[in-house]
């Protein structure tokens, strides 16, 4: 009965072929370092879930942002847990992404025919850094405020375009309600949309081309 339904659905969705392509593909005999990409994906999903939950209560305005964060951490059941996951998950995300990048680099896995996978990966890395930079401001506490003051100031010292970039990032001369709102919008819309799109391409390439074997001295 249930099997009939599953088959009926598969006739229409064809999910079995997709499942097999993703999870039952042939891979070379590899080591644990090859799980770093999956770990990054897992963390990205975790950040997405906890981030969505945080937006249920967080408000990106200077007069209430900090209060809403305190409310999440101290008043809500498991609020400290959800925010804690997002906070530590963010750091873990950067660490694991860099580890994944290093593994690919040191194993020479970026070479033909995987250059496109590598390039999308580099952009994904930049997006992860962007998440970290924009997310850091959102609690709107002293650390957030001054870190973003310094961070945008650093962009400001770039030759020729520096001042222009600083003003674009801050939405004006100095940190304000405009800065907080655009960092929030970037953090929850622009970057997630870019990340999702590029992850899709990245995974498509991983599955289409297959993963590299561990490099070895001997000719194979």
């Amino acid at each position, binding site marked *: 009965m249930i099997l009939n339904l599953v088959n009926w659905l598969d006739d229409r969705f064809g999910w079995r072929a997709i499942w097999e392509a993703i999870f039952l593909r042939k891979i070379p005999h590899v080591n644990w370092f090859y799980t770093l990409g999956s770990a990054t994906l897992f963390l990205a999903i975790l950040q997405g879930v906890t981030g969505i939950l945080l937006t*249920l*209560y967080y408000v990106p305005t200077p007069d209430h942002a900090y209060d809403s964060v305190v409310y999440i951490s101290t008043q809500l059941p498991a*609020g400290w*847990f*959800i925010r804690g996951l997002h906070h530590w998950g963010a750091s873990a995300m950067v660490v694991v992404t860099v580890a994944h990048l290093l593994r690919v680099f040191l194993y020479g896995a970026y070479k033909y025919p995987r250059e496109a996978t590598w390039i999308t990966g580099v952009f994904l890395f930049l997006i992860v850094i962007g998440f970290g930079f924009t997310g850091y401001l959102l609690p709107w506490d002293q650390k957030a405020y001054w870190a973003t003051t310094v961070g945008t100031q650093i962009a400001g010292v770039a030759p020729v375009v520096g001042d222009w970039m600083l003003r674009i990032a801050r939405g004006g001369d100095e940190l304000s309600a405009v800065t907080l709102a655009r960092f929030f919008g970037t953090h929850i819309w622009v970057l997630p949309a870019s990340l999702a799109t590029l992850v899709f391409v990245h995974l498509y390439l991983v599955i289409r081309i297959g993963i590299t074997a561990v490099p070895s001295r001997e000719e194979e």
Partner: protein
Amino acid sequence: MDKSQEGKMGRRDFMKAVIAAISGVIGAAIGLPAIAYVVGPALQKETDEWIRLGSVSKVEMNIPTLFKTVIEKQTGWINAEEEFSVYVLTTNSRDFVAMSNICTHLGCKVRWIPDQDGFFCPCHNGVFAKDGSVVSGPPPRPLDRFESKVEDGILFVKRG
């Protein structure tokens, strides 16, 4: 698939079971707190409190009299002031009926119109008599009443 050993779990099935179990644990570890986190504010009950309306001498005989007061309210991360209005009716200057000004249909605010001797709701034309009973329109029940008390000539209602 290992079909040679009937009844014994193969390596692949074992791994599948382990992965499913770990996924379940992770899902529960995030899903259950998430449910508590989402429904949390909905479970908070407002505490009962007596609200001071004002002197009973202001209540006119046989005419619903409006008392307005401002109460402090903590909603989420905002401390807001909220206007709280009550209609008070007395027929003998000793017993007071305190009625909510919230329409029992869908929660709009009703207003006492002296000329027409009734409470009128602007949203769907609900009409209540001076004692709060429904005269016409969609309201399913009379206006809600608050528990009230008089102390030293001051009228209080209990909000819960």
